[in-house]
């Protein structure tokens, strides 16, 4: 399976070059490998019920990440949809994007997307799954923003990225916890510990985090808004994204984790409520829209909601419904999207109000769209009908509200089916339809195969049931389930519901404009607009960012210093206090009169610097401080340090003076307020006090002198020098000095360079203001 996934990725990497070499044939060539892969997966179908396949490679063992794949009924179903529909999509995009400048890049992205999706559904390791999960986010970002100069497309791309990343990151946390609680990161292992997990303290957090990932990816309310916006992508992308990939990832994950996390009240309520609400919302929104692609997008919401709802309800019927509806939806949605794209391609519009009477001009497309629309409406003998019957069957055994939601949603589907097929193709021809034309085989081949497959599956549901549904349901249920599917179940309550559904849907379609107005009015009245909320949240985030950053990083050095010193005083002070570190030295050297004199000298200099009214007065005062310090060093037995301090102190003064020579007296600075000055003083005193306390605390600890004793013993005998300090500097710790002279060298070179810049500025007559 690794080979298969890698094959797709390698194909993606080669795609641009291939397209450049053979622009006319590239889509055929590029569609072939996915088709072959699909064939390979198809070959696995027979045995999959008995023996799932597993492969594993070492990836990042330190993190518990293996590149492991697991092929069972569930993943096989998804893999077939992904590669099968994917192959048609690639083919289709060759026709749809023919001649586009970035066609080569498009193949790269869409194939990478395919590979990611395939990896996602095959992955057995939680983190491998997550890697592919995130890859689908990244590649879909590139696909949604494909029309990159269109601001709306960019916004939609970022929106999809942000929303799915939000969930993705939560899910990552959930996976970590899942692995921790479940004792491993292989899904196949975790499944075994499902019972323990459901009783684990972390169960609820894990569930919520994982659901966050699944719900955002699968666009469950309230995260649904990104999905319709993603319609800004080229149609092949929409078709793929909505039918087989991206959005199904969340559903896949829920199904995958159903045996592990499912079956609890929390699971049931979370999924049924989210699924039901999403299904109904999607259905209603679909009826509001007039853009062909948007209508389809909202029906996707409905489908995703329904799938979630089914997983939430659980039970054999629901799972069967899940398995069938999943396939049904993929087939009809892929066909409808590609068909809608062909309509768009042929007429130049997607607005159903501008479309009508296309049938004579686009019979091929119309026929396939009709089949797909019938499936979407849940009418026999198409597979959509089989799926819907199962949904109702499950709903009748589940909560009443769930059934109601499914009913409303399905009715909406009926109406939506009318909107996407009847409205454009029947009735009088509109101006837009007048010059409509059929595209090439690349454009209709996909819809043809998918819609016909939907018909075949509907006519022979048993085939579908034994081949896919059985193993799929088994994977979702975590145990073998007998699946026996029929198109006709007799006169069941579900059939009754279906009739009602069609009736209600037909009514809604016939009163489409009034329905639309009613729904729009309700939505306006409810004031719920998640898309606008997204904008508000992001704008709010931007404002918060600007405000926080403006406060922190306002550009005033003074403020920065104030913050830093406040932090120093606070952190040090608190630590001294909280950790009981304050200690006063008990034994100390005798007071020396000379030392007192020198301390007084230093403090005089320091205070005078503070009070100095002119800069030269300040420099002179600093000199006193420095001189006092030098004399202190000398007096307390450090002649080398003392001399150095003397020289450096003077040299500093000289450099200062040489610079000041060039610096005219600067005009008045704005005067700090009294409050500022008191604030500064408070911070300064706080820092001074804490530093003093720290010093006293250190002085209270006896200082071991073994290092200095060693130096004293070895200085002459081992290093041939009597001046211990110098020997430390050039021998014992000569490496310090090497670094020190490097500092001096670089500093002096830097001064030179900088002054040359100044000089150059002067020559060019640089104006300081």
């Amino acid at each position, binding site marked *: 399976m690794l080979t298969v996934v890698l094959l797709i990725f390698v194909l993606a990497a080669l795609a641009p070059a291939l397209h450049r070499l053979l622009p006319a044939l590239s889509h055929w060539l590029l569609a072939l490998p996915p088709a072959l892969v699909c064939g390979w997966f198809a070959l696995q179908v027979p045995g999959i019920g008995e023996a799932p396949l597993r492969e594993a490679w070492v990836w990042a063992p330190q993190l518990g990440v293996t590149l492991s794949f697991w092929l069972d009924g569930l993943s096989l179903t998804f893999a077939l949809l992904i590669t099968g529909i994917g192959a048609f999509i690639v083919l289709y995009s060759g026709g749809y994007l023919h001649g586009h400048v970035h066609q080569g890049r498009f193949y790269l992205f869409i194939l990478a997307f395919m590979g990611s999706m395939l990896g996602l559904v095959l992955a057995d390791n939680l983190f491998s799954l997550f890697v592919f999960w995130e890859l689908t986010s990244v590649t879909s970002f590139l696909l949604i923003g494909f029309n990159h100069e269109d601001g709306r497309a960019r916004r939609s791309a970022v929106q999809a990225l942000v929303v799915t990343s939000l969930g993705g990151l939560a899910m990552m946390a959930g996976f970590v916890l899942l692995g921790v609680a479940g004792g491993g990161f292989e899904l196949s292992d975790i499944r075994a510990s499902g019972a323990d997990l459901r009783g684990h303290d972390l169960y609820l957090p894990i569930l919520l985090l994982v659901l966050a990932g699944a719900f955002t990816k699968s666009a469950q309310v309230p995260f649904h808004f990104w999905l319709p916006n993603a319609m800004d992508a080229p149609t092949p992308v929409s078709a793929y994204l909505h039918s087989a990939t991206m959005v199904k990832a969340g559903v896949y994950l829920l199904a995958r984790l159903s045996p592990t996390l499912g079956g609890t009240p929390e699971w049931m309520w979370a999924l049924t409520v989210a699924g039901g609400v999403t299904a109904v919302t999607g259905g209603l929104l679909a009826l509001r829209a007039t853009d062909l692609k948007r209508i389809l997008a909202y029906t996707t919401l409905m489908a995703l909601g329904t799938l979630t709802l089914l997983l939430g309800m659980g039970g054999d019927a629901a799972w069967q419904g899940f398995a069938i509806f999943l396939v049904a939806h993929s087939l009809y949605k892929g066909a409808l999207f590609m068909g809608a794209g062909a309509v768009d391609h042929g007429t130049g519009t997607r607005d159903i109000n501008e479309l009508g009477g296309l049938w004579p001009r686009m019979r091929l497309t119309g026929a396939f769209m009709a089949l797909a629309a019938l499936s979407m409406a849940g009418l026999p003998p198409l597979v959509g009908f089989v799926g819907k019957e199962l949904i109702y069957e499950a709903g009748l055994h589940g909560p009443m509200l769930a059934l109601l939601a499914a009913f409303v949603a399905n009715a909406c589907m009926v109406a939506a089916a009318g909107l996407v097929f009847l409205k454009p193709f029947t009735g009088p021809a509109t101006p837009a339809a007048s010059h409509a034309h059929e595209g090439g085989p690349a454009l209709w081949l996909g819809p043809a195969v998918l819609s016909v497959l939907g018909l075949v599956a509907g006519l022979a549901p048993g085939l579908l049931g034994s081949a896919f549904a059985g193993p799929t349901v088994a994977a979702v249920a975590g145990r073998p389930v007998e699946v026996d599917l029929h198109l006709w179940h007799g006169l069941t309550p579900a059939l009754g519901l279906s009739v009602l559904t069609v009736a209600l849907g037909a009514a809604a379609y016939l009163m489409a404009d009034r329905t639309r107005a009613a729904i729009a009015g309700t939505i306006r009245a409810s004031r719920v607009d998640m898309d606008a909320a997204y904008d508000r949240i992001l704008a709010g985030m931007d404002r918060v960012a600007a405000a926080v950053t403006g406060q922190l990083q306002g550009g005033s050095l003074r403020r920065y210093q104030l913050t830093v010193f406040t932090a120093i005083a606070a952190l040090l002070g608190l630590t001294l206090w909280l950790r009981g570190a304050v200690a006063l030295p008990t034994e100390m050297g005798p007071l020396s009169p000379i030392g007192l*004199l020198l301390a007084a000298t230093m403090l005089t200099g320091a205070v005078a610097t503070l009070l100095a009214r002119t800069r030269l007065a300040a420099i002179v005062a600093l000199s006193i401080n420095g001189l006092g310090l030098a004399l202190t060093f000398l007096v307390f037995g450090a002649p080398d340090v003392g001399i150095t301090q003397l020289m450096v102190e003077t040299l500093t003064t000289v450099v200062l003076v040489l610079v000041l020579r060039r610096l005219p007296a600067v005009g008045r600075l704005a005067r700090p307020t009294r409050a500022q000055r008191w604030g500064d003083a408070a911070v300064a005193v706080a820092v001074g006090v804490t530093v003093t306390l720290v010093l006293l605390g250190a002085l209270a600890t006896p200082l071991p002198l073994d290092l200095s004793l060693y130096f004293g013993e070895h200085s002459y005998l081992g290093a041939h020098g009597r001046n211990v300090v110098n020997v430390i500097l050039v021998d014992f710790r000569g490496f310090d000095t090497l670094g020190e002279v490097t500092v001096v060298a670089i500093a002096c070179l830097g001064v030179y360079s900088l002054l040359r810049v100044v000089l150059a500025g002067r020559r060019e007559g640089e104006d300081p203001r």
Partner: protein
Amino acid sequence: MTGFLAGCLVAGFVLLGASFALTAVRLLRGPTISDRVVALDLFGVLAVAFIGLFALWAGHAVFLDAAIALALVAFFGTVAYARLIERRGDEDIPPADLESGENADGR
């Protein structure tokens, strides 16, 4: 060390201490840069004397090197200051910039 010498050294320290204090007064009062530089120059010379005195007190001639070094650099510092005054004039005569900055209060 005889008591006399010790006494003389103590007296020397006291006198020098007083000298430091007096010089510091001029140093801080100015009023002109030249005054400050004169005072600083004297401060340096006093420090040389102090080091000499301390060398006697400690009985270590090594401090003498420090005294010489100080004399050398103090001289150089004074020359630099003089060059500054030559170029910029005696800046302290007009009220200069630091005063208006932060601490002019009450002065």
